[in-house]
C-alpha cells in the first residue's frame, strides 16, 4: 500500500505544482490517475519514484517511510517506474536492458514472454540497441517491457503508457496490464487519459491544479468524467480529461 501525506512540490522557478496531495493506493489493485495536462500527475509519479524530492509531506510504502530514500533504494524496495519519454542508450541492447531490470540473465522463453506481452517479437528485437534505430512506438513498448521484467515490485507506475503507441492495437496494452494485475500482488498505478485504460481501473483518482479533485471506484468516477467530456463547454475547474 502506498500512502501520500500532504505532498507539496514546486518547480525550481517557484511555481507551485503540487499543493498538498493526500492519497492512499491500496495493494493488489490497479489505480489510474487522470486529470488535465499540467495538473501535476507526472510530477506526483516522479516524486513517488524518487526522481523529484517533495518540498514537504511523507511517502509511505507498506508502512515504511521512503520520503528520503534515493531512486535506487526505492527501486530495491519494489518501486517500478516506466518513463513517459523513454530513454535511449547507444550500445545497450534490448536484452541488456531487460536483464538489468530483472537483475539476472533471462532465458529465451522469459524474454519471449516479456516482449510478447508488449506485442514485440523477441527474435526481431533482443539484439537491437535501445537507441535511435527504434521508432517511438517500439521504444515505448520496450520501456514498458523493462518494468514488466522486474520481479517482486510492490508498486509499479506507468506514466502515460499509451503515449506514442499509435500503431499498436490497444488491446495488447490493456491485456498486459490485466496480466500484470493478476500475477502481481503489489499496486499498479497508471497515469492515463485513455478511456480504455480507465475502464480497467479498480480505482480512479482525478488530479487537477495540484490537488486530488476526486477519488473513488471506477463506477463512481467514470460517469462524472464522461459527463464532463460530453459537456458543451468546459467550465473553469471542470476541464475535459
Amino acid at each position, binding site marked *: 500500500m502506498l500512502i501520500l501525506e500532504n505532498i507539496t512540490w514546486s518547480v525550481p522557478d517557484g511555481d507551485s505544482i503540487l499543493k498538498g496531495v493526500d492519497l492512499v493506493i491500496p495493494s493488489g489493485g490497479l489505480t489510474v490517475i487522470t486529470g488535465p495536462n499540467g495538473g501535476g500527475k507526472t510530477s506526483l509519479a516522479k516524486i513517488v*519514484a*524518487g*526522481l523529484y524530492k517533495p518540498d514537504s509531506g511523507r511517502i509511505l510504502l507498506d508502512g515504511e517511510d521512503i520520503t528520503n530514500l*534515493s*531512486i*535506487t533504494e526505492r*527501486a*530495491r524496495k519494489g*518501486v*517500478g*517506474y516506466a*518513463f513517459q519519454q523513454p*530513454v535511449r*542508450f*547507444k*550500445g*545497450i*541492447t534490448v536484452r*541488456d536492458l531487460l536483464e*538489468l*531490470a530483472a*537483475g539476472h540473465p533471462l532465458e529465451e522463453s522469459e524474454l519471449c514472454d516479456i516482449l510478447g506481452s508488449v506485442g514485440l517479437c523477441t527474435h526481431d528485437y533482443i539484439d537491437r*540497441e535501445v537507441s535511435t534505430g527504434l521508432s517511438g512506438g517500439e521504444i515505448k513498448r520496450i520501456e514498458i517491457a*523493462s518494468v514488466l521484467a*522486474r520481479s517482486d515490485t510492490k508498486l509499479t507506475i506507468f506514466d502515460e503508457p499509451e503515449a506514442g503507441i499509435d500503431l499498436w492495437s490497444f488491446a495488447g496494452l490493456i491485456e498486459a496490464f490485466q496480466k500484470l494485475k493478476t500475477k502481481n500482488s503489489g499496486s499498479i498505478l497508471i497515469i492515463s487519459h485513455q478511456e480504455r485504460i480507465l475502464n480497467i481501473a479498480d480505482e480512479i483518482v482525478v488530479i487537477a491544479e495540484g490537488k486530488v479533485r476526486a477519488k473513488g471506484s471506477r463506477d463512481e468516477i467514470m460517469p462524472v468524467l464522461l459527463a464532463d467530456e460530453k459537456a458543451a463547454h468546459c467550465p473553469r475547474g471542470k476541464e475535459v480529461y
Partner: protein
Amino acid sequence: MNKITEKLLEVISDWKGVFDGAFNIREDGQCVGRQSSPNIRIDPLAGGAGLEIHVSSQAQGETVYIPACVTKSDVNDLVYNDFYIGDGADVVIVAGCGVHNDGEGEARHNGIHRFFVGKGAHVLYKEKHIGMGDGSGARRIDPITDITLEEDAVMEMDTTQISGVDSTVRTTNANLAARAKLIIHERLMTNDQETAKTDFTVNMNGEDAGVDLISRSVAKDRSHQEYRSVIRGNTRCTGHSECDAILVGNGTVSAAPELFAGHIDAALIHEAAIGKIAGEQILKLQTLGLTEEEAEQKIIDGFLKG
C-alpha cells in the same frame, strides 16, 4: 614464449594455449612461434623486420593470428607486416598488440600493417590493444594501417583499445576501388593522463565504393583524445562516419571530421556527439535498482561494446 606474453595473448587474441591454423607470435621484436597453413603462407621479411602473409583464394573462413607483445622496458619494437589477400578469399586476421611494462624505461610497439585485398575478397581484421604492468615507464602503441581494396573487396576492421596505453597514435589510410566496402568500428577508452590520437583517411576512387566509419570512445580522468577523419568521395560513392565520445571526470576530446565530395553523386554523411553521460540514462538505470556508479559503468560498457 614467456608468461607475460601468454597473459597478453589471452587478452588480445583469445589465446587458449594454442592457435588453430596459421599464426606468428612476436615477443619483444623476436619471433617465438610461426606456422603456415595450406592456404595461408607466412614468410619473414629479410632482417626480421616483419612478415609477408599470403592468403590464397582457396582460403574460406580461415583465421590467421599475428599478435605482437612487448613484455619489458626499453624495447622499441618496429614491425612491417604485409598482407596479400587473394581474389575471393574469406579470412579473419587477428592482430592484437599488448605492451607490459614493469620498469622505468619506455616500452613501445609500432606496427605498420599493409593490406592488399584482392577482388571480391572478404577480410575481418581484429585488432585489440592493451597496456599492462606497474612500472613508471610509458607504454606506447602506434599502429599504422594502410588498406588497398580492389573491386568488390570488403574489409571490416574492428579495432579496440580499452586501457593501460599511455600514448597512442593510430593512423589508418585506405583506398577503395569500384564497389569495395570498408567498415571500421573503433572503440577506445583512455584513463589517467593517457593520450590517444586517431587519424583516418579514406579515399573512394571507384564507383559505388562505400565506407562506414564508427568510432566510440570514452575519455576518463585527465586523459585526452584527438579524432580526425577525412573521407574523400572522388566518384559516385557512399560514405558515413559516426564519432561519439563520452567524457568522464576531466577527460577532453577534440574531434575534426572532414568530408570531401569530389563528385555530384558522392553521398557523404557525418554524425558526431561528444558529452557526458546523459542524466536521464543514469536515472533510468537507477529506477531499475542500480546505483549511480553501477549505472555509469553499464552505460560505458554498453557504449563501447556496441
